[in-house]
């Protein structure tokens, strides 16, 4: 089975994630889109690992997953804190750093 399909799927997932980050306002959705991009990256890593017959890519994918897990914890905590303080999960409302 050729790896192109996997790579195309990964590219599609990454694009969906990127567009989602840019256009959606809800912080939870933005967050999920970020995860989608990370996983697209993982898929690419695993695909290339399979093609070359090494396990480097697979190991890297595990690292990405571990970091993504930690990131989720922190990210969700930030979203919760923002929601509590301003009763909104919209990323556009959190604009205190505006000049």
């Amino acid at each position, binding site marked *: 089975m050729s790896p192109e399909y996997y790579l195309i799927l990964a590219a599609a997932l990454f694009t969906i994630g990127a567009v989602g980050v840019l256009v959606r306002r809800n912080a939870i959705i*933005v967050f999920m889109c970020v995860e989608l991009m990370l996983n697209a990256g993982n898929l690419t890593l695993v695909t290339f690992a399979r093609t070359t017959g090494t396990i480097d890519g697979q190991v890297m994918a595990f690292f990405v997953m571990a970091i993504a897990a930690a990131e989720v914890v922190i990210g969700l905590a930030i979203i919760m804190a923002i929601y509590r303080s301003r009763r909104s999960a919209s*990323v556009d409302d*959190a604009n205190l750093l*505006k*000049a």
Partner: protein
Amino acid sequence: MDEITYAPATGLLSWTWLLIALPAVGAALLLLIGRRSDKWGHWVGVATIGTAFALALGMFVSLGGLDDKSAVTDLFTVISVGDLEIEASLLLDPLSAVFCLLITGVGFLIHLYAVGYMAEDPGRRKFFAYFNLFVAAMLVLVLGGNYFMTFVGWEGVGLASYLLIAFWQIKPAAATAGKKAFLVNRLADVGFLLAMFIMVGAIGSLEFSQVFNGAEGLSEGTSLALGLLLLAAACGKSGQWPFQTWLPDAMEGPTPVSALIHAATMVTAGVYLIARSHVIFALNPTVQTVVVVIGALTLLFGAIVGCAKDDIKRVLAWSTVSQIGYMFLAVGLGGAAFALGIIHLLAHGFFKAGMFLGSGSVMHAMNDQTDIRRFGGLWRVMPITYATFAAGWLAIIGIIPFSGYFTKDPIIAAAFARPGWEGWVTGGAALLGAALTAFYMTRLFVLTFHGPKRWTEDVRPHESPAIMTGPLIVLGLGSLVAGGLMAGSVTEWLTPVFGDQPERHGHLSHMQVTLVTTAVVVLGAALAWALFRRGTDEAPRAAAWPVRLARADLGGEAVNRGLFEGPGRFAANASVAIDARGVDGVVNGLSAAVGGTSRRLLTFQTGFVRSYALSIFSGAVIVVAALMVVVIQ
């Protein structure tokens, strides 16, 4: 020329440092103890100077007993760099010994007088501290065994003079006069410093003996520069043209200060410097001519301005300028005239100090007024001041047997002895100066003590207390006899310093000079007496241009204003403008540029997370695209 050597000090003479230490300790004590010594502090000042005078007298006598007539004490090394070694050494020789006697002797009398004069002043203790400081510095100046020590004393007397001129610093005029004296003196002191640098460079030492012995080998240019620089320093300290402007203003200080510092001692430091460096000055005829010209010019300058002034102290100040001009003339003529200059200096110390103290006594009686137009008829109420002032007056105009006759006439004779037409010019100037001196001093004397009373209504003149009249009487006697006593003996006493110089005879014989001088002096005095016998107007009258010019210090102030103050102000304003527009402009422009740029950049900070994300994505796309381009190629 003979080698100049100085013998090491022995016996009493190895205690020369004590002469300086006594007043220095007095000054330190009075300044450190502070207000607690207000009640008795002035007696400390008087006692230290009195002891120093006794010591100086003892040293004078024991110096006379020595064969080589010199005593050097090395105290400690001040600077030791490479081959150059500068010792704090003291030299007592006939020249410095007579100066020590003048400084401590006249200084003691003036200290005593100041006890009475400053009795009402709350700052009397501080005054005596500064006074002692001055005497200490002046003794360092004349006792210094090398140019460095002389320079230390030179600066020390400058400082003390500044402190004392501005003693009543609440008066703006006094504060300004102090600063003026300080600045003019600094300007001239640059000459002294440069001269020392030349000595170190060309001879490699500042010790008198080595400098004088090495001076022969100097090139003509070096000796010219050395002489002119030392002359500039001397002119500054002695109020000679073109630095004469500070001395009359220095009269803003208390009168004892004017008497001691700005008449009897400090202002003669220039004459001392030239006399001490006579070897250097004798090397170069150009330098000698310049000294003579400056002396002749200044003696006329001072005498002319003195005729037009109405302030008793300022007339005396201009007469000091003029008399020091005579001394410069004498030391510039060189040879036997060196000793004549020193003798006139000593005699002048007596009669001018006496007259200044007399003017202080008059001011005391007249509620501190100084305008001679409002005096008159004082001889009846203050007989002692009158008699002593009369002695000083007769001494300065040179009436036999008062001291000026024995000290000024020989200078005039020596001026005529210059060869050729120069003799007629210098002699004529000295003679004219004598006539003018007789005129303005008689004017001062008559307007103050004779004629109708022109007092303001609130004055009740009275004779001064005994502590003030005592010194006046001693100085008055000095004006009477000092010249006659010194004329022969001091010349002989100074022979070891200046060498045995043959007296030169010129266009006129001594007898002729004496007759002519006496004639013009009597003429000048009689003219003044006739003009001012009946008093004068109580306010200045409109006058012809020569009088107006003399009242304006012969344009001295105008020259200063045009030559120094104007460009000085311009430079100050220009640097302010450069600072405000140039330096500030660069700094402000830089900060404005940074501020403006960042204000423009602020618009990118929208606060929207998604727009930041977009810029990150675009950046990433650009980086990847760039990589692709590179990889594909």
